[in-house]
C-alpha cells in the first residue's frame, strides 16, 4: 500500500472515531476531495459494525412504550418532542439544602472482600417518600411482592459508612435476579440538592470486573422525607450480585464512580440471601 493511501486511511480512521485536529481535517479535506462518498464512509461503517457487535453482546430490549410512541410519530409524520412524563418519577427533584460534604472519613475504601459489619441505627423523620407513577402498584406493594416472591429475592440491609450523608441512615435493598428488578429502602439518608449532587446506586456483579460495577440509577432524597423507596434501574443485566453500594455523585451522574463518597453498602455475604 503506498504512503499516500496509508495516510488517507489513517485520516479516515481518525475521522470515523471523531478525533481529527484542525491540521488533519485540512489534510483530509485536501486528500479526500476526490473520493466518492462511499470510500469516505468506509471507516464510519466499520466503526458502526464493531459498535453493533459489541453492543449486541449485551443488548437490552427497548421499552414497549417508547417503541409505540416512535411508531405513532412515524405514522403521524411528525418529529414532535417526546413527553418526559415517564421519567419524572425517578428524577423527582425538589430543591433541598445543599449537602456538600468533605470526603468520607477514611478516604478510599476497598470494594472487594468488603465485609462491613456497620452498626445500623434507625432514625425516623417526618415527611413524604418517593413519588410514584400513577396507576401502578405502589413501590411498597412492589417491594412486598418481591419479598414474597420467595427464593429468588435477596433482601439485604444497608450498612452506613462514615460519610456525613449516611449519619444515622438505615434501610435495605431487595433485588430479584429473575425479574431483574429491585427496590431500595432508605431511612434517615440525608436530603440532597439534585442540582448539585445526587445519589447513585452501583451493583457489583461476580460475573463482571469489579472495577466496573453496574449502574443502578440516580435518585434523590427530598427534605423531610421519612422512609424513601427507590426502584432500581440496572443498566445492564445482573448475573450474580455481590454488593450494592450507593455513592454521592454530580448532578448528572457518572458512568464510573471515583468512589470518593460511598454512603451505604449492602454486601451479599450469605449464600441463602441470593436464592440462586
Amino acid at each position, binding site marked *: 500500500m503506498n504512503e499516500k493511501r496509508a495516510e488517507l486511511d489513517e485520516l479516515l480512521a481518525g475521522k470515523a472515531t471523531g478525533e481529527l485536529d484542525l491540521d488533519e481535517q485540512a489534510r483530509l479535506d485536501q486528500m479526500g476531495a476526490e473520493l466518492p462518498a462511499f470510500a469516505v464512509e468506509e471507516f464510519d461503517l466499520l*466503526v458502526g459494525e464493531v459498535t453493533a457487535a459489541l*453492543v449486541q*453482546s449485551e*443488548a437490552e430490549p427497548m421499552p414497549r412504550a417508547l417503541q409505540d410512541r416512535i411508531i405513532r410519530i412515524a405514522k403521524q409524520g411528525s418529529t414532535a418532542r417526546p413527553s418526559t412524563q415517564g421519567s419524572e418519577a425517578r428524577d423527582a427533584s425538589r430543591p433541598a439544602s445543599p449537602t456538600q460534604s468533605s470526603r468520607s472519613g477514611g478516604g478510599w475504601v476497598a470494594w472487594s472482600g468488603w465485609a462491613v459489619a456497620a452498626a445500623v441505627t434507625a432514625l425516623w423523620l417526618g415527611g413524604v417518600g418517593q413519588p410514584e407513577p400513577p396507576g401502578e402498584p405502589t413501590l411498597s406493594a412492589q417491594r412486598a411482592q418481591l419479598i414474597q416472591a420467595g427464593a429468588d429475592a435477596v433482601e439485604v440491609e444497608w450498612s452506613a459508612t462514615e460519610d456525613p450523608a449516611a449519619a444515622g441512615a438505615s434501610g435495605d435493598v431487595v433485588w430479584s435476579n429473575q425479574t431483574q428488578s429491585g427496590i431500595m429502602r432508605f431511612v434517615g439518608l440525608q436530603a440532597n440538592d439534585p442540582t448539585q449532587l445526587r445519589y447513585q446506586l452501583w451493583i457489583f456483579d461476580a460475573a463482571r470486573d469489579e472495577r466496573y460495577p453496574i449502574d443502578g440509577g*440516580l435518585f434523590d432524597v427530598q427534605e423531610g422525607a421519612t422512609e424513601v423507596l427507590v426502584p432500581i434501574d440496572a443498566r445492564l443485566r445482573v448475573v450474580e450480585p455481590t454488593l450494592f453500594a450507593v455513592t454521592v455523585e454530580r448532578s448528572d451522574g457518572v458512568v464510573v464512580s471515583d468512589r470518593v463518597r460511598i454512603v451505604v453498602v449492602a454486601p451479599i455475604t450469605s449464600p441463602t440471601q441470593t436464592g440462586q
Partner: protein
Amino acid sequence: MNTAQLLEWKTPTRERFGGFVVDRKPDSPLLAVARGEPGGVEACLDEYGSLVWSLSRRWLRQEADIEDAVQEIFVDLWKSASRFDPSRASGHGFVAMVARRRLIDRRRKMERRPKLMELPDGVEMSTDEHVTTQTRIANQHVLDAVKTLRTEHRQFVELSFLAGLSHTEIADQTGTPLGTVKSAIRRSLLQLRETLTAQGEGSLEGVR
C-alpha cells in the same frame, strides 16, 4: 460448526466490499422502510430497537435524554434508509453508524462527558430474541476480530465506540498519553479492517 452455520455457508450471503466483510440479511427492514412498505417501521424497531436503546443508554444519563435520542435516531434512520446499501454494510452496522453520529451531536450539545464505562467482559449472546442466527454469526466474526487486538487497544476501542469517550477522556481515565490513545485507536481500526477482510477471504473458499 452447527447446522445453522452450515446452512449459512451454503447460501452465499457473504460478499466482499470496500475492504472488509460483513454478513448481512438480504431483507433488512431498512429496505422496507426505504420502499415505504407497510410494517417497515415496526420491523425496523423490532430488529434494531435493542441496539439503539442499549447504545443510547451507554452514552447518556437521563432517561428523558435517552428516550429523546432514541426517537431522533429512528427519525434519522427513516430519513436515511434510502441510503442504506446492503452491499456496503449490515443493517446493524448502518444503524449503529447513524446512532453514533446522532449521539455524538447530542453529546457535544449537552457538553457532558461521563467517565469510564463498564467494559463488557467476554462475549454473551444477545438477550434480544429478534437477533437472528445470521446476525449472531456476523457479530461473532466482528467480536473475534476485536479479540485479536491487544488488550489495552481493545479497551480503548470499547471506551471510544461503546461509551463515546473522547480520546482525551480515555487518556485521562487510563493514564495513557493522548497521542498513544489516538494512534492506538486508529491502528486498531485499520487492523480490524484487515482481520475482517482476511476472514472474508477465507470464508469464501469452497462456498461458490
